[in-house]
């Protein structure tokens, strides 16, 4: 189910990218795709009944099936940060696009030849 939700989210992101005229919405769509992929990654590591992979007093010892797969979580941590970086650069680019072309709407932008 989580898989399907994340895939549908990817579809929504792609739909947004294809239909929206506002460039900031493109950035948001991209973010949605990123998030969807992240959800998907975490989901691939889930074990039914598994706990968060942290050794505490209550779960002091290792056993197969007790913890969920920690690797996808570590990967997602990286992927989130990358998404943030992309978003920051994209947003600042849009600030300048707005300054230069007086709009961030694809149809109203000025001076975008070729």
């Amino acid at each position: 189910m989580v898989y399907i939700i994340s895939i549908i989210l990817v579809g929504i992101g792609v739909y947004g990218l294809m239909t929206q005229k506002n460039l900031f919405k493109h950035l948001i769509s991209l973010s949605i795709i990123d998030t969807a992929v992240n959800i998907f990654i975490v989901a691939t590591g889930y074990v039914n009944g598994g706990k968060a992979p942290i050794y505490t007093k209550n779960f002091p010892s290792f056993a197969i099936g007790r913890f969920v797969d920690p690797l996808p979580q570590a990967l997602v941590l990286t992927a989130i940060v990358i998404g943030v970086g992309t978003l920051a650069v994209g947003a600042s680019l849009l600030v300048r696009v707005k300054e230069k072309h007086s709009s961030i709407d694809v149809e109203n932008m000025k001076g975008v030849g070729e």
Partner: protein
Amino acid sequence: MISLLIAIPLLLAFVSVMWKRLAKPLFFLAAVTNMTVLLASWFPNSVEIHVMGSWKPPFGINLVFDNASFYAALVVNFFFFLVSLMPNLVESYGVSLMLLMAAANGFVLTGDLFNSFVFMEIMTITAVTVASRRENFYNAFKYLILGGIAGSIYLLATIFAYTATGSLNMAHVSMATISASSLVAITTLYAIGLGVEAKLFPLNGWVSGVYGGNDLAPVILGTSVSFAALYMVGRLFGTVFHGSGAGVLYTLALITIIIGEVAALRQQNLLKAFAYSSVAQAGVVVAMISKGTSRAMGLAYFHLTNDAVAKFVIFLVAGFLVYNYKNLNGVFKKHKVLGASFSMATFSLVGFPLFAGFQSKLRIIMELFSMKDYLFPAVMLLATLIEVGYVVRWNVKLWFEEETDEKADNPIVAGTLALILSLLLVAVFIKPEIFLGGAMKMGNALADTKDYIHGVLSVVKGGM
């Protein structure tokens, strides 16, 4: 030792953000160090690995240093070194270029799928930064969006590979038994994910905008970064997936060649025209890689090296012209050295004899005929025909049209570099071994999966 290739530029980048004025000399220092490191470890001729944090593969991350990654790193760093010689091109982008350098090196050297994704994203972000120079924001934004999509798909592919094999190590993935349907999913997603950086049709929409938007981006993105990306195509589809998914690449690449040349033909902007030509050449390289044999791959990288050298000269000269003259008619009458280098480089691109492009193009066609592939040579020759059209048109325009009275100073460093590189192209025609030897070793290393797996997984040592 080889981890220094990534560590040194990174460290210097971090340092230079504190002292902005140092960025340019530090970039030069980083490039020189990297070249020194590479020259000190000339062609390892075996698969050496460097394990990060001394966690053995497939558990930890490892850098792989074999003939293939050495040659790719050499080419990549060489162009960064050349760029670092031109301070007025670097301007305030020293930090970004250092990061780009570290990322390109990491992308080339890494033996881990997820790690390559991380480096690809660094490359995308720094490349976008570089592309936004000279207020080229909208095109940079488009590049960012496409790069973002590609990154997501690449990540998705990596996760599919992880769930299928239980590891992220390339060597392990290449030896693990993956079900056919799984392999389809992984290779499709990787083909698309890499397609953006490898400039495959139709994922190459960003190229003209980014290369055509300023004078720094094409010089470095069209040479180093595109070499790194195309190296990864060879590594993944040659070494890791043993040529599955090659059919997709082949078809897309052939379409790319024609589309790229046709689009270049109609371009009225000098930089954009050759941006499209670089798309077409990338198509040739990918199609050759998809053939999968070591010879074919070696020739692909030979061609790519020639193309990169020629493109460096072309973009360097074109960037100078476009941003110093409003009307390009007959400008080479004022810049004879630039003009001569430009002409030589473009003729090499077409594959006229006396220049390096001839050697690679003819060898590729010959190799294809010996593989009984009759379609690709025909496509390639048709593409070359179109190329002749616009290359001659531009040369005639830049040399012979009536000049205007605009004037700009001759760039001395850029002119010298362009001349040296274009003479290098002539030298390669006379003695192709200059590039061919390394490229062939690279091809062998990429095609030899067994050696790669053995080298990565059985050698358990830290190693400098």
